[in-house]
C-alpha cells in the first residue's frame, strides 16, 4: 500500500486528527515563555570572560567589607573599603572596577602594595575615556608637578584628588560646584574661606548654581599660576575672564580682591580699618544697648511697672 502525498489543504487537514491539533496548540502555548527568554544564561558556562557586573561583584566580595582598613600610598592612606551604594550612585557607577583599575593583576595585593600605582596609572586610567581633559591637565601647572616631582613638600594633584574616585560626581551638578572650594582648599588652605565670604561664595553655598567658583576664574584642567601670562587671571586675560559673567566690566573691575580677610593686616588698609571700626562699633553699641535694656527691665520689675494696666 503506497500512500500518496496530500496535494490540497483539505487533504492535509484530514491528515490531522483532533488529538494532533490539540497537541500542536499545547506546543505553541508552551513556547510562549521562550519569547521572554534572554541569552544571559548561556554565558554562564565558565569559559567566557566574566561580564562587568559579575566582575565588580567579585571585587566587592572582599572590598565591601568595612573591616578592610586602609593601605599606604604615595598620596597618603587609601581606604580599601568600598561602599557599593556610594559607587553605584557615582557618575561611574555602571563601569566595572577594572575599567579604571587597569593595573589589576591576578593577585590583587601586588597591585595595592605598589606605592607608585597612583602616580603611574591613575591618570592613564582616566585618559582611556577622557583624553582631551587629560592632555589639558598634562599642560597645566598641576600636570607639571607630576613630572617634576613638584617643589619640596608639594604633592602633585592627580585626577582623583579633585574629582574623587569611587564617589566621583557629575560635574554639572550644584553639589559638585559647591564642593569645589573645599576640594581646592585641601591644598590651597585659607583661599576657600576668603572666597566663601564673597557674594559668589555665599550665594553658591546657599544654592545659586550660576555663581562663579574657583575653576570659573582660575581655570580647571589647564590651570596655571596667576603669574603665568597664559593664566586666565594674568594681566592680559583677567578682563575677558571677568567678562564671561560681567560683559560690561572694565579694567578697574578686575582689581576687586576676592581673597581678602578684612580683619587681617594683609588686607588693604581701608578695608582693614573699616572692618575693625565696625567690630568696635558693634561691640560698643550692643554692650551699651544690652546693659541699658537689662537695667530698664530690672527697674521695671522692681517697681512693679510691668504689672500696671496699660503700662502707665
Amino acid at each position, binding site marked *: 500500500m503506497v500512500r500518496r502525498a496530500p496535494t490540497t489543504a483539505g487533504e492535509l487537514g484530514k491528515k490531522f486528527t483532533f488529538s494532533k491539533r490539540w497537541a500542536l496548540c499545547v506546543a505553541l502555548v508552551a513556547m510562549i515563555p521562550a519569547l521572554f527568554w534572554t541569552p544571559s544564561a548561556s554565558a554562564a558556562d565558565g569559559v567566557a570572560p566574566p561580564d562587568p557586573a559579575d566582575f565588580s561583584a567579585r571585587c566587592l566580595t572582599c572590598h565591601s567589607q568595612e573591616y578592610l582598613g586602609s593601605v599606604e600610598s604615595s598620596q597618603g592612606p587609601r581606604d580599601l573599603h568600598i561602599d557599593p551604594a556610594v559607587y553605584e550612585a557615582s557618575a561611574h557607577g555602571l563601569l566595572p572596577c577594572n575599567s579604571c583599575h587597569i593595573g589589576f593583576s591576578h593577585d590583587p595585593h601586588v597591585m595595592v602594595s605598589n606605592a607608585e600605582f597612583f602616580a603611574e596609572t591613575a591618570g592613564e586610567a582616566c585618559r582611556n575615556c577622557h583624553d582631551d581633559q587629560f592632555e589639558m591637565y598634562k599642560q597645566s601647572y598641576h600636570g607639571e608637578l607630576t613630572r617634576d616631582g613638584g617643589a619640596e613638600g608639594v604633592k602633585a594633584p592627580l585626577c582623583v584628588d579633585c574629582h574623587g574616585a569611587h564617589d566621583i560626581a557629575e560635574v554639572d551638578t550644584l553639589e559638585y560646584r559647591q564642593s569645589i572650594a573645599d576640594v581646592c582648599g585641601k591644598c590651597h588652605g585659607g583661599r576657600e574661606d576668603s572666597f566663601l565670604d564673597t557674594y559668589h561664595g555665599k550665594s553658591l553655598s546657599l544654592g545659586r548654581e550660576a555663581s562663579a567658583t574657583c575653576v570659573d576664574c582660575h581655570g580647571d584642567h589647564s590651570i596655571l599660576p596667576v603669574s603665568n601670562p597664559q593664566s586666565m587671571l594674568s594681566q592680559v586675560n583677567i578682563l575677558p575672564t571677568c567678562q564671561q559673567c560681567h560683559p560690561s566690566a572694565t579694567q*578697574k573691575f578686575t582689581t576687586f580682591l576676592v581673597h581678602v580677610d578684612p580683619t587681617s593686616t594683609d588686607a588693604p588698609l581701608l578695608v582693614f580699618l*573699616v572692618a575693625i571700626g565696625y567690630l568696635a562699633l558693634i561691640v560698643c553699641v550692643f554692650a551699651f544697648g544690652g546693659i*541699658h535694656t537689662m537695667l530698664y527691665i530690672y*527697674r*521695671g520689675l522692681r517697681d512693679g511697672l510691668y504689672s500696671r494696666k496699660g503700662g502707665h
Partner: protein
Amino acid sequence: MSQSTDAIEGVNLVYHRFSAFHRFNHYLVMVSFFGLTLTGIPLKFKTSYWSQLMMDAIGGVAAAGFIHRVMAVANILYFVLEVGYMALYVVTRKGPVFHDDSIVPGKKDWADMKGMFRWFLGKGSKPRLSRFTYWEKFDFWALFAGTFLIGGSGLMMWFPEATTRILPGVALNVALVIHSNEAFLAVGVIFIFVHFFSAHGRPESFPADQVIFSGYLPVEHYIHDRPDEYANRLKAGTLEEVVRPRPDAGRRRFFSVVTTLVTIFAFFAASYTLLLVLWPLAF
C-alpha cells in the same frame, strides 16, 4: 488755661504724636527692613542650617535677591522722603530749628541719660522726658546714617560694573565689609538691643506701643511719659495743636489689631535672626 487743662485730662481726648507722613515712613521702613533682613541675613550666616531652610522657603537665592532689591528700593524711598521732609522743615519753620522738642540731640539728652541710669540703680527719680528721648534720637539717627551706608554700599554691589567705572575694585571690597557689618549692627540694634525694647518692651509701653501705627496715645499716658513736652506746651499754650478727640471704636480696634499682628511678626523676626546667628556658634 484751666479750662484747656481740664479738657485734656478728660478721657475723650488723645495726644496726637505722629502725622500720617511719619507713620507712612515707619510702615515703609518696617516692611522693607523685615524684607531685607529675611532675604539678606541668610547670606551672612550661610553656614547656619536655618539659612538654607529660609532660602529654600523663599524659592532660592535668585528669588531672594529679587525680593532684596525690591525692598531696597522701598528702603531708599524712605530715606529720600525723610531727607525731603527735613529740608522742607528747615526751610519752612518759623521758629528756631533746634529746640526742646527737636529730634536733634542736645545737652538735655546727656543729662537725661545720666538721670535714667541713676533711676535704674535706685539713686534718683525718673527724669522728665521730652518729646524725643535720647534713645529715640539714637534709634532715628542710627537708622538714618545706617540706611545711607547700607544703601550706598548695596547699590555699589548691585551695579559693580558701573561702580568700577569710577572707583577702583577695592571699593567693592569696602562696600561688602560695610554692607555685611552694617546689616548685622542694624539687625542687632532694631531686633535685639535697642529698638524693639525701647519702643515696645519698656515698662511704659509693654507689650507694644501702638502710637507709631495709629499716631495717637491716651492723654494720661502722654502726660506721664513725656512730662517735659507737656510742660513746654502748657507754658507755650500749644497743647491744642496735639490734642484731639478720641477716634471711634472701629478705628481703635483696627489699630489694636495692626499693632498685635506687627508685634507677633516682630517676635518671629527677632527669634529667627537669633537662630541664624546662634546656630553656627552652637553646632
